[in-house]
């Protein structure tokens, strides 16, 4: 016997997107911390999940986030060449490239899932990109396509 998730909370007028962000521990998560230390304000819509490396991010994480009802997904790793694990982000980049194309091919709005690089020194960039992602997803509206329905 097995367990999985569904939900059917309806969307109200003051809808705010919920965005899940998978950040690599060494660059992007540190960049997010730096944004905090520098008190750079950004929209409170993201929830960060720390992973060791962008290479750890299996497409399952991203697709599951959508079926689970997150309105947007953000994936961020070290810039190419900066990877703490030498090449984890480069391995991941191919994976993300394919997933990104397939998502669009399947009719998922571009921007529902976003990929970026942010270094440990880029607090400002991190915050700017969070603002951008939040804006993109707000414009897209709630994630209705992939969200599992309580049928």
């Amino acid at each position, binding site marked *: 016997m097995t367990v999985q998730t569904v939900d059917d909370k309806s969307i109200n007028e003051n809808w705010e997107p919920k965005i899940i962000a998978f950040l690599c521990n060494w*660059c992007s998560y540190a960049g997010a911390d730096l944004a905090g230390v520098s008190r750079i*304000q950004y929209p409170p819509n993201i929830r960060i999940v720390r992973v060791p490396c962008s290479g750890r991010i299996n497409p399952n994480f991203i697709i599951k986030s959508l079926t689970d009802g997150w309105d947007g997904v953000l994936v961020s790793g070290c810039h190419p060449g*900066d990877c703490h694990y030498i090449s984890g982000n480069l391995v991941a980049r191919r994976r993300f490239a394919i997933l990104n194309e397939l998502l669009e091919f399947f009719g998922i709005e571009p921007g529902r899932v976003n990929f970026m690089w942010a270094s440990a020194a880029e607090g400002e960039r991190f915050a700017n990109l969070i603002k951008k992602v939040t804006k993109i997803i707000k414009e897209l509206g709630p994630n209705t396509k992939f969200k599992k329905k309580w049928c």
Partner: protein
Amino acid sequence: MEKIGAVLIVGAGIGGSQAALDLGDAGYKVYLIESTTSIGGVMAQLDKTFPTNDCAMCIVSPKLVETGRHQNIDLHINCKIEEVSGEAGNFTIKILKKSLHINMDKCTGCGVCGQKCPVEAIDMFNEGLAKVKATSVKYPQAVPLVYAINKDYCIGCGVCEGVCKAEAVEYDLEDQEVEFNVGAIILAPGFEEFVPAEGNKYGYGKYKNVVTSIEFERILSASGPYTGKILRPSDGDVPEQVAFLQCIGSRDLREGQPYCSSVCCMYTCKEAVIAKEHMDQVNPTIFSMDVRAYGKDFDKYIIHAQEEYGVQYIRSRISSITEDSKTKDLILKYETEDGKIISEVFNMVVLAVGLNPPNDAEYLAEKFGIELNEYKFALTDVFNPVQTTRPGIFACGAFQSPKDIPETVTQASAAAGCVNQLLYEKTGTLITEKTLPPEIYVAGQPPRIGVFICHCGINIGGYVDVPDVKKYASNLPNVVLADRNLYTCSADTQTIIKNKIEEFHLNRVIVASCTPRTHESLFQETIREAGLNRYLFQMANIRDQCSWVHMHQPKEATQKAKDLVRMAVNKARNIIPLERIKLSVTPKALVIGGGITGMVAALNFASQEYETCLVEKEMELGGHAKHIYTTLEGGSVQDYLSDLIQKVNSNENLHVYTQAEIENIDGFIGNFKTTLIHGDRKERVEFDHGVVVVATGANEYQPKEYLYGKNPLVIKQSDFEKLINTTDDIKNKKSIVMIQCVGSRDEERPYCSKMCCAEAIKNAILTKEKYPGVEITILFRDIRTYGFKEKYYRQAREAGIIFLRYDEKNPPNVIANDSQLKVEVNTPTKEVININTDLLVLSAGIYADREENEVLAMMLKVPINDDNFFLEAHVKLRPVDFATEGIFVAGLAHCPKPIEDSISQANAAVSRACTILSKDEIEAEGKTAVVNMARCSGCGMCVENCAYNAIELIEDRRFGLIASINQALCKGCGACSGNCRCAAIDVLGFTGEQIYAMIKGRL
């Protein structure tokens, strides 16, 4: 006199930190002394590093955090050396710890004091381009993260004391003297950047848009004053034309700076590239004399900068700079190589300032009783550049001579390697191991989670409704306790956490506070002391990633904090105790290659009583050095070599195998097994060992150009060196021409062989000394006498040796002419100069043998680069390590370099290896990848994805071909798992189930 198993390291930049980590890991007690308030030195200030354009902060900060919390490293900041006495093996040190006016033990680094401080001070970390408060921390990621009050600016208003809820502000805290004993000392105080004097000809200080390179570095930095935008200081406009001037305070007798600062050519090129990368409108132009891109992959970087980024190089030293008073633009006047005088307008000028010895060099020299050289850098041994004039005291990094980060890191490890050699019997004697209670058995029990929510003074509590979050958390499944604390990281809260674990039988602990990057290990230690496995811990980052970034949205911030806590609880319900697997270590070393590098490494191992096996493919030891007689600085290589061979042959811990070929190397860190065949009779030997040092060297290029091999008057530089040192054949020569860069910096081998310039100048000077009548002409592309070698370049010119530059695209033409040769040189001034010569000497480069290196690389599963040299784990910070643990590289196998660099690398490799060999067993990281054998179908994708060679396919009796992970090599990055289709690989600590649980935490 008893030796002491402790080491003093002065200076906690990247060099000092590296040496401290090496020695700390090798079991020595390390006193790391830093004069400023945090560690990291200049590297922490840099934006990117060449030649990989790595983000400096990304790569250095994990190292600094590690240094900061290393059990064997005793870090003292804001310190001054008072007294040094004793001798090698046993020194007594007295230091003065200057007061920060904030109690380090209490300060949590929350930063409220700095925010509330009403006084602004100049931000020295940002080179004065920004402001900080009088109560501040050096930079946001500083280690240790402790605030300090700058008394020069402080007005004593007492605001900080009032706002500090941790009661850490102790305004009257006094300086403190500390005394301790150490067995050895490493000096790594770094350098001081050259500051153009007042009234300098570049207008620095007078014209706003003339900045130094280090200031420009801060401008480039995303965390710098302009958040990475390229703006000029006068008006904040984007400068389109930016001039970079090389050799400011270098190679300049008039400035009293005769030596070359070694790093400016590369960092300038990097700054130009990054500037272009950050803002495309920027057009960088670099004014230089010679482009000294002598390091590994440096030339490629320069070419790339020119071709991909359009960086302009102009070979000229500018004669004057004036400012357009209206536009604040700068007018540069200079003479081109073909003699034209040009006046050009730039929007901004960056001065590539050189590296000076540290300001307190003389003070340090006096206190430590060491000698300085003529430029006031540490005077060191010709062959061992980390050995100062006083035994037991070593110098490394820019204090020894100007150098870049990898060379600094190499020397730091080399110094540590020499300390190892000196103090090896005392390793492990002064470090204390904590006694911990046995771990409580929690497997299979339902989770009992305790959540501790931090107010962090007002940092969290001021924006997030902590009581509400607490109430929320207490209702979450499996949470048996939710508590809130003023500072969860304070010492008294640690006691509270421990008590609560006992009282509530907690078996999972969550702290909702700041970032795990800085605080996870502290809390892990706490729960471990309470008997819980340290992995039964989770953090929710509700400060750095919540309260601080949503300061104006308390409602949303509270909601987000709840979400984050819920996600952490969800994950915590799925975490399990992890074990750090212990692997035994065979305390023996294998060194491949019997040149100087290999012998130095082997001898260092052997003198530490590690049984060592030295393998040489030739009949006799000596390698490349057999053909070198002296160094440019005058050291006798042949004497050094014969002494070294004698020591190697007489060391009883050292087994030398000549005419040897390695048949196979199996195993992994700590546990290698090698089979080799050696000698005339091809005997087979098997050898167990814990580490491998690859010192296989490289070969001298056999020229195909310039009639070499066809005309007896054309010889190689090494042949010439032999002639001049052992015969008087040169006596009758009237004219000698040397051609540089033969087989270097061309299409096939696009790298610089680094030593040829020095070799040519060395031999030319010697010839001139012996036979003053001989006319010597050196045809070059760039003269790369970096560092103090510049002196000999000057000396050569003064001795009348002629230097003529030729263009890469237009190489000299050599025509045989009876008993003479005619050399046609096309100079950059478009003149053609004909030289009739009796002898043509070709400075042949260094090349690596692809086939040989490939065989070894396959055996060791380590990479080689495009130029067939071995590729280290990280170009900047792990220059002698391979990504595969337990294997190291040194010497010419790594890239072309002079003897002293090879020796440094050999000692560095030994130091890195000693961090393994000094232990009976090594602990693998608990958070590693694991294979679910029943799921794995052995497709092998993970094997290719793994950067550490930690995965191999094995044939399992039950499951067939499956992946198998070597826990000792796995770093837990999860690249394997991210690609695994059937989720056969999972990463402990970040398992699919745990991440799934977090995804489900959406509210």
